[in-house]
């Protein structure tokens, strides 16, 4: 199978899954619509009904990790092609990637020492 045919197959698979969800929706819809009742469609909250939107400023408390992650994440892009040719090149590849990862690990250590790796 050519590469393009494989991508087309994956796309068709995704479309099929969406179709499954739509048909479930259709079956459910054909069995009847939910009756309108007061307070039925209010999202769950503890104790009282919450009528205001909750989309306000919310702090997730892992900003330090997120910042380090954004930069550290890019190392994967270089690692995969390297892993494929690793056996072929041998020691040279090991040293190259060793230097690269050591540099990145310095960044991680710096973040750790500055307290990026804790709850903000």
């Amino acid at each position: 199978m050519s590469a393009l045919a494989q991508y087309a197959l994956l796309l068709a698979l995704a479309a099929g899954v969406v179709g499954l969800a739509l048909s479930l929706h259709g079956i459910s819809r054909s069995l009847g619509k939910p009756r309108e009742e007061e307070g039925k469609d209010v999202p769950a909250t503890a104790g009282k009904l919450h009528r205001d939107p909750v989309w306000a400023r919310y702090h997730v408390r892992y900003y330090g990790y997120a910042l380090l992650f954004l930069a550290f994440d890019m190392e994967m892009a270089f690692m995969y092609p390297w892993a494929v040719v690793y056996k072929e090149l041998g020691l040279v590849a090991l040293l190259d990637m060793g230097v690269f990862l050591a540099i990145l690990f310095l960044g991680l250590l710096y973040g750790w020492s500055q307290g990026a790796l804790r709850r903000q």
Partner: protein
Amino acid sequence: MMPLYIALAVGAIMFGVGLYGALSQTNLVMIMMGVEVMLGGALVNLVAFWRFLHPTAYPGQTFFLIIMTVMALDMAVGFGVGTARFRARGSVEMEEARELKG
């Protein structure tokens, strides 16, 4: 010949949309989104040139990886600056950032 031109056109329009966004938005994060859209346009052009003009020259793909790194790094540094500014002022609206002007 057609696919190359379509890809280049997509890259050019993405660049225009990103330029509009980066210039018109007042919020730091939205400005960065504009920059990301522009860099996305650059990525399309890179892949199109690699695919249709020099498919055996792999430095083109290396360059793609570098541009992608730049995308991630500009976000990391941008959010760093934004967080510092948010701590100091409580907002990241760029119209209020007068002291950054020379």
